[in-house]
């Protein structure tokens, strides 16, 4: 039939064109978002991805499922009814005698039969409230009707931010507290490069079996040490409209944080990834405080430095270096002994020789003030002459400033 030929070949040509368009390559590229998501899923915590529609949440989940070797089941929440998740009531012959069973949908049966899988609940925020209520029970209790999801099934949900959700969906504080909230954004470069034919291939974190006990120990020390000094942050309900529906600190979410720190440590993840995860469990403010405390935990211990001043290894970054030097002065102040005082001077000289001199001025001045009358000035101090000079020049600059602005020089703090 020659009449049909052109139509068929046109479709074939279209098929060829589609195949050409589909030919893309991948390149390895670190992806912090995906790494954070993988760790949270591995840690078996309910994850909620917040992101505008169409920025590749589904694509990320596909990649995650492939790398974890789990079959992916995507359920678009907004096209389902509440009974699809709470179970369809099936009226039997004698409801009063036998009760009304709640029949689960087919995908749930298949998931339970497989025993493992990644369940992705998409578009949580555009579903009607009754559907959302049913879905949240599924996420938090892992039940669909009479079915209990096996432990091998991991659940990830996705929602649009409040400002773009059509009906202003939001989580109540108790519900928000049970999720790891991950903000999903698109990377401009990745999108442009991907449309050009090269999509990123994320290398996913691998947990190091050797590291597990150390990771647990580190996570416990970090969270407990932090909460010991900041009791108000153990439990703080979100206040104000701005932070509604997001993460907030409570014993439950601190427990999740501890788990995620252990996972991130065992996987050797970067601070960026850890920051995303911790912000997602306890919220921005407490997360930043915890991360700042972690930074301090990783600085060299002043006592160790004082014990071996010649081999002291000071941090490269100026602000960290100054924090270490301040710590040393504080340590000498706590237990003033001549040998410790001398060791501290050795470290000051080392700091001067390996970095910017201005950082040494304040710690050196405080250290000099700790001198007892019977202590001889160590020879090392000679080498700090440059610091004294720098300090004097700064004083003179302050005096000149005072003349120019008409404020007395003594007024400076």
């Amino acid at each position: 039939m020659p009449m049909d030929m052109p139509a068929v070949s046109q479709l074939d040509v279209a098929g060829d064109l589609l195949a050409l368009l589909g030919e893309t390559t991948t390149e390895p590229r670190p992806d912090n978002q995906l790494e954070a998501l993988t760790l949270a899923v591995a840690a078996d915590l309910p994850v909620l991805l917040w992101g505008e529609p169409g920025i590749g949440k589904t694509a990320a989940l596909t990649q995650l499922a492939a790398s974890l070797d789990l079959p992916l089941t995507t359920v678009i929440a907004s096209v389902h009814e509440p009974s699809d998740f709470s179970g369809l009531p099936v009226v039997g012959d004698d409801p009063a005698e036998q009760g009304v069973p709640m029949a689960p949908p087919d995908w749930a049966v298949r998931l339970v039969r497989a025993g493992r899988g990644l369940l992705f609940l998409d578009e949580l925020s555009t579903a009607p409230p009754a559907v959302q209520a049913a879905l949240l029970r599924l996420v938090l209790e892992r039940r669909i009707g009479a079915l209990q999801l096996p432990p091998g099934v991991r659940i990830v949900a996705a929602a649009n931010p409040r400002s773009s959700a059509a009906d202003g969906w939001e989580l109540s504080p108790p519900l928000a507290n049970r999720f790891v909230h991950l903000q999903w954004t698109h990377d401009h470069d990745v999108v442009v490069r991907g449309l050009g034919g090269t999509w990123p291939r994320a290398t996913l974190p691998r947990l190091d079996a050797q590291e597990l006990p150390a990771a647990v120990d580190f996570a416990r020390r970090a969270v407990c040490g932090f909460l010991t000094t900041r009791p108000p942050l153990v439990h703080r309900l979100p206040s104000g409209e701005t932070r509604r529906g997001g993460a907030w600190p409570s014993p439950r979410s601190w427990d999740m944080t501890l788990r995620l720190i252990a996972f991130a440590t065992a996987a050797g993840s970067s601070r960026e990834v850890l920051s995303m995860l911790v912000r997602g469990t306890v919220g921005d403010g407490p997360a930043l405080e915890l991360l700042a405390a972690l930074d301090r935990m990783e600085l060299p211990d002043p006592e160790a430095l004082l014990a071996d001043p010649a081999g002291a290894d000071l941090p490269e970054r100026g602000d960290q270096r100054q924090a270490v030097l301040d710590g040393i002065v504080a340590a000498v102040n706590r237990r003033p002994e001549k040998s410790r005082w001398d060791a501290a001077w050795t470290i000051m000289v080392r700091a001067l020789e390996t970095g910017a001199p201005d950082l040494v001025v304040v710690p050196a001045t405080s250290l000099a003030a700790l001198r007892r009358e019977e202590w001889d000035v160590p020879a090392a101090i000679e080498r700090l002459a440059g610091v004294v000079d720098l300090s004097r020049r700064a004083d003179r600059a302050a005096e000149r400033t005072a003349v120019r602005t008409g404020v007395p020089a003594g007024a400076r703090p």
Partner: protein
Amino acid sequence: MSAGAPGALDLDKLYTARLHAARVRPYLATALFALHTVESRQVPTMAVDRYWRVYVSPGFVDRTPVEELAGVWVHEVSHLLRDHHGRGDRAARLQGLEGPGARLRMNIAADCEINDDVFGDGLVRPAGAVTPQHLGLSGGELMEDYLRQFGLGPRTQGLVWLDCGSGADGMDREWDLGPDGAHGLSEQEQDAVRFRVAQGINGRPGNAPKGWKRWAEEAFHPPQPWRELLGAAVRSAASGAGAGEDYSYGRPSRRSAGLPGIVLPSLRRRPPRVSVVIDTSGSVSDAELGSALLEVAAIAQAVGGRRDLVTVVPCDAAARIVHPLCQGEGIALLGGGGTDLRAGFAKALRSGPRPDVIVVLTDGQTAWPAVRPPCRVVVGRFSRPKVPRWDEDDPYYRPDPTPPWARVVEIGSATAGR
């Protein structure tokens, strides 16, 4: 240590200036010390990149007095602390600004934001520093606000050499070492430095000027645009159970026909009824009220409400219509009693059919109903500068706090935020 080869960067002078800066601004010391110095002959003066490196021209250090250099240090670190590159990128996206001209304007606007409040009190303003007065603008505003107020022209002619680097306006420069270069700070490390500086300011609020205090308060909780918050609150109130779209067993589902023996609910929609109670005490300006009212009406329509289901209740003794009352722009409050929103609530609830949501637009200087009304309540509160209301007869008068059953959205001026 000092005076190396001719033309070399005088690090001692540079660090003396940093020490002076850290002494007069102790709360910025962490940030100042976190900067990594890079010598560069391409930068005109000093410039920062978005990874907290500072590029320094040796010639500029040579010809600038120490006390002015200290000012430049504080100026450059302010760009980074205040995230001017991120905000510049955002402004570029939102307002569709692109190209070197727009970025120069951003640099100038960012400089204005910094220079209007960081100098003085022990710190000298460097020669040639651009100020809002320079451009004929008033001070104390944010970069985004300045950006809208001037264009490149005769007034900015002398500023075209100005270049604080990619850290100030978000446009990459040829001298930048980029994200992979040495000694860059990662985003998380930058946040940690900002956090520590903010903590230092909040811990000793007496020492820092107002601009820095505002920054410290907002550094990690940027103000959200009130339109979005009000929208979210009204949407969520209007689409909660009982109104909007939801499942009901009141009528069988269409699916039921194909599934004998199974009882299914059907999707019903009942458009929400929204009542807007407006505080017409005169302390709320025409423009504010108008824009808030428009916003509420638009949101109510977006969630499926019909125009006829949105009612407006001006709350005052007499039933006046809204327009004439909106002309009270800039008029001070009259008397001590003022409005009593309890009347407005009663009126809104008496009207039939009863509203699902009451949205109150007020400045908060009012009494509130003692019991929770039988519907959801969203309060849009116009923020007022801290001028407490004064009652001659009762000097201890304090307006009631907003009740806990209402969701409160602060309606401020257009906050650009971080």
